[in-house]
């Protein structure tokens, strides 16, 4: 039981971090399907730079920089250049997945998996039994994640930027009337989003593990996006959804170990996707809410600048 809860936290942390990235993008009216690509880029950059410099902090800083730069390019393509948000996002994901696997081969001459000595500090460790197991052996990023969720919530709820973001996402027309440039606000949201994706990727590669593997995100970016929808694009809601998917993942892993009562793992893994279809469907039933969120999204598709 303790082991399941510990695994839940470990699986959920990267999901929650990337879900926060998704919340910022979604609030700005951007259906960000590039999260997966940014996440794996973050994971790779952390390992590559961290390994080269021997410093995990530098690795994470570099990852944040690279992901923010990619986010800025994404903004440029979908904003001023008017590309389709969904397709460019999926393209960004492919660029991330393909680019990191390619770079692994081109820079390090490795196929598949690369191990590293750099690792994030783990504040609490050593517990082998009892409730201590739940909080033991987690990287510092797992500990910081709740804080990030809290800050995200405060920023979205209480800050001037949060209000602008809400205006741009829900009613760009009003935002523009109030003298806010939606395009700039979208850029800011995407930059924050990129940085959070980098953290999520870093937690995956040097937090929970000590390696980078091709395609190691394995759909987590999409699941995080799903958590955003499932959590009604609220930071706390999305974080809870991320925790829930972490739990589903942990149960899946556990049921693999205890083969005796075998629920096929695939069916456990399907849960998030099936639930999401329900969530999106129900969200569609709350008509008003969806339309508000989609207004900003719709505007991105209309030629207006």
């Amino acid at each position, binding site marked *: 039981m303790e082991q399941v809860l510990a695994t839940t936290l470990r699986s959920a942390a990267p999901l929650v971090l990337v879900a926060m990235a998704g919340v910022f993008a979604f609030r700005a009216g951007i*259906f960000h*399907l590039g999260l997966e*690509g940014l996440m794996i880029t973050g994971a790779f950059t952390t390992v590559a730079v961290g390994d080269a410099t021997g410093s995990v902090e530098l690795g994470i800083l570099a990852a944040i920089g690279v992901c923010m730069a990619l986010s800025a390019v994404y903004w440029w*393509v979908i904003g001023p*250049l*008017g*590309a*389709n948000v*969904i*397709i*460019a996002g*999926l*393209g*960004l*994901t*492919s*660029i991330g*997945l*393909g*680019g*990191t*696997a*390619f770079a*692994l*081969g*081109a*820079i390090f001459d490795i*196929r598949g998996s690369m191990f590293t000595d750099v690792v994030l500090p783990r504040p609490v460790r050593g517990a082998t039994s009892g409730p201590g197991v739940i909080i033991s052996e987690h990287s510092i990023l797992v500990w910081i994640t709740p804080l990030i969720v809290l800050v995200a919530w405060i920023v979205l709820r209480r800050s001037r930027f949060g209000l602008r973001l809400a205006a741009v996402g*829900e*009613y*760009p*027309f009003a935002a523009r009337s109030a003298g806010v440039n939606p395009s700039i606000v979208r850029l800011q949201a995407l930059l924050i989003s990129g940085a959070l994706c980098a953290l999520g990727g870093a937690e995956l590669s040097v937090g929970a593990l000590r390696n980078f593997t*091709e395609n190691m995100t394995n759909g987590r970016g*999409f699941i995080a996006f*799903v958590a955003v*929808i499932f959590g009604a694009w609220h930071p706390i809601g999305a974080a809870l959804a991320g925790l829930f998917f972490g739990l589903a993942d942990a149960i899946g892993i556990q049921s693999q170990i205890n083969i005796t009562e075998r629920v*096929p793992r*695939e*069916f456990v*893994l*399907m849960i998030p*996707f*099936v639930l*999401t*279809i329900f969530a*999106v*469907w129900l*969200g*569609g*039933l709350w*008509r008003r809410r969806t*339309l*508000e969120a*989609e*207004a900003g999204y*719709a*505007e991105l*598709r*209309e*030629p207006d600048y």
Partner: protein
Amino acid sequence: MTGGLQRVASTVLLVVVSFLLTALILWVSGYRVGTVLSGIIQGSITATGAATSTIRWTIPLLLIGLGVVIGFRAGFFNIGGQGQFYVGACSALVVSLGWREGPVPLVIMCGMIAAILAGMAWSLLPGYLRVQFGTDEVLTTLMMSFIGALVLQYLTAGPLRNPSGTGQTAASERIPEAFRITDSSGVSVTALLLVGGVAVLVWLLLERTRFGLTMTLVGRNPTMARWQGIDVRRVGLGTFALSGALSGLAGAVELYGPGARLVTGFSPEVGFTAVVVALVGMLSVWGTVVAAVFFGGLQSAILFLPIVTDLPPPALVLLHGMVAFLVTIKFRAVRRRRTGPAAKPVAG
């Protein structure tokens, strides 16, 4: 079509830019772009078996890509081709393994029909939610795609697993050789006639039938279409069904053609590449044919490239991503549909 030439020019330009950017990345990484280029030409056209291999990869890309084209025509964004492809292949496999002794043409027919129905089902659920409740089909088709991949994984690792199989990835049993419509090269007259026939039928449907016209009208302006007395829901469901049917059929062709058995996560990029193919083909049937051959050639070349250069195969995924990232630039008419009431002041 007004501005047709301009569209072709801008698409070609964007594809060329994507290629140049990828070439730049390769060059910076220290690969000889010339060698890679000559490898691509050899691997897709001139080397022994290369042209066949190009056609082999063109077939699934074309079928799924045409499904995407149909969806876009009515303004729907079916990005779940991968899952529909998988469940199609799975259904055909179940039929073929369950009825090994049956008369060959009948089993193949039944397998293909099962695949088409499965693909339809996989696409109709999002379609129904879309037309009935306005649920965003991008998300639901994507989710159904993940679920389809898990269904394949479950079947190949569980009930249909080849017990004597070795190797790391789970694979199903092989279907009897008699059921295959091609050899392992994946190309035969039957397969080509089938795919060519499907392409012609899709063209006829879209450009020469009443239903095709109503689809186009719904895609251009659903409100106007409703005023003209078109049953938008019915057209929507029909579009989703056809779109899924083509992806399902692609799965069956893959199984009866080059596959003969299913491996967990086979052809993982096909669904997404097909979306790129449809967009590069400018959402027209013949454009999609050309784009499918082009991307089929690239797919074939990437399998050949290790012979002439040590370029890692993921470079192809990078290239596809680059094309997808850029190809829709200023490409607007696609999803004009979902302009909710709240967004109207913006347009005005």
